[in-house]
């Protein structure tokens, strides 16, 4: 407990929630993430942008302790993820929208996570209501639409009432109403002073949601900073992105 509060205080005093330093990940001869450095200030929604295969998901997996870096550091709240005491209480993350057992009810899915994270069972119903899944909570996940599965994943990430939310392509496969819902949800989350890192290759959507961007290409940092600085002088995010990633004619 003291440790966790310490984590948060350190992060808040430095204003940095995520710090990635010279992060490198190689798979055999392939360099998926190449000497990547960036940091996320607290209270922002940062779009993590790049073409398909740029290394976005790999970077998030390194950040979340699911993969080990070849070199460099990825720190969350000042520590490596796997060294956090109760990570679910400071970080929530969804990497794949479909990560639930089809034969288990949405509610039981969340209950297993709450038990493991030592989060009171009442919180399960709270997060189900938060993502509008309370009506279908006892149905097996197999009967859920893609949008419902995505929201179930999100509910799982919110169980510990985290300070940082990390989402990999959360708008993928969502219908317009689902995208709208997600955007509003992320805005509200960030308005409470919390931090969001959201990867995307859908630039028009990202431009409407995020206030900061980190752009990578072929594993390397291309740009990072405030969205309004990147899109000055009438330049759209798409223009900036294509120019920076070298695709522009």
């Amino acid at each position, binding site marked *: 407990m003291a440790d966790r509060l310490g984590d948060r205080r350190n992060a808040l005093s430095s204003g940095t929630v995520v710090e990635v330093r010279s992060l490198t990940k190689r798979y055999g001869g392939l360099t998926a993430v190449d000497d990547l450095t960036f940091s996320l200030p607290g209270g922002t929604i940062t779009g993590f942008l790049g073409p398909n295969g740029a290394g976005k998901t790999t970077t998030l997996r390194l950040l979340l*302790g699911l993969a080990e870096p070849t070199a460099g550091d990825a720190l969350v709240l000042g520590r490596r993820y796997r060294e956090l005491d109760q990570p679910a209480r400071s970080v929530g993350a969804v990497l794949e929208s479909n990560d639930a057992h089809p034969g288990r009810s949405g509610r039981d899915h969340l209950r297993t996570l709450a038990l493991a994270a030592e989060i009171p069972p009442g919180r399960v119903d709270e997060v189900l209501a938060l993502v509008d899944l309370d009506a279908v909570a006892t149905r097996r996940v197999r009967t859920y639409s893609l949008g419902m599965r995505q929201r179930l994943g999100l509910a799982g990430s919110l169980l510990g009432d985290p300070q940082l939310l990390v989402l990999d392509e959360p708008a993928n496969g969502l219908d317009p109403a689902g995208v709208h819902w997600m955007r509003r949800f992320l805005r509200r989350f960030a308005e409470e002073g919390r931090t969001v890192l959201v990867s995307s290759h859908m630039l028009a959507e990202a431009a409407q949601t995020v206030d900061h961007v980190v752009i990578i290409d072929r594993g390397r940092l291309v740009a990072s900073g405030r969205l309004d600085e990147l899109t000055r002088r009438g330049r759209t995010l798409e223009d900036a992105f294509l120019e920076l990633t070298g695709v522009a004619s």
Partner: protein
Amino acid sequence: MRALVHAELLKQRSTRTVAGLLAAMLGLVSAAVLLHSLALPAEELERIDLQRLVFGRGEFLATLFAALVGAMSITSEVRHGTIRATFLVSPKRERVVGAKVAVSIVVGASFGVAAGALAVGIGTVALGTRGIDVLLEGRDYALLVAGSAAAAALWAAIGVGVGAIVRNQVPTLVGICAWLLFFEGLLVGDASGLGDVGRFLPGAAAAAIGGQGPDGLLAPGAGLVLLAAYAAAATVVGMLATNRRDVA
């Protein structure tokens, strides 16, 4: 660790997988024991070693299904992607594997008791209807059922270890089935030309616990110790592999 054990218990209870495997196992035990008791010639079934072998089908099938339950506690999470959320919540991954071993041992022991008791029950009744005297005594029965529980519990732990090492569900389950149903059969006895190393294999050790093959296999106690060593080794290697390798 307690919290993780509770989480793993809920994972097992909240899908139909374990109940389905239990039903399949009990069906197969009934069929196997009935077929052997009713179809084998009476003069063979009058031998005590054959009676023990037929009644021991319960233990054999319990070890197989317990191993599948243990393996699926990990491979099913890999298959459905829940392993990511599991390790995000519990980044000390060896504890997750430990909790899976603990829960699988309990489920495996239950499978073992159920299969062992069903097999001796059906076998006794079936032999009785043919007028064949059952030569097994109370301690033979106790050894068959208790041995089934112990062997299935330890094989469930081996299943978790193998699942943690292989991770991919289909190769894991096919591998366990092939090992227990086929490969060990080739290696036990002198057919392989390697002498009697076969009795030190984990499937043969499981059979020995139930009192099978006093001439060819280990004594029950030695089988138990050896199988426990296999289970401990599988658990440790499974923990190390899970800790060191990246999660997809």
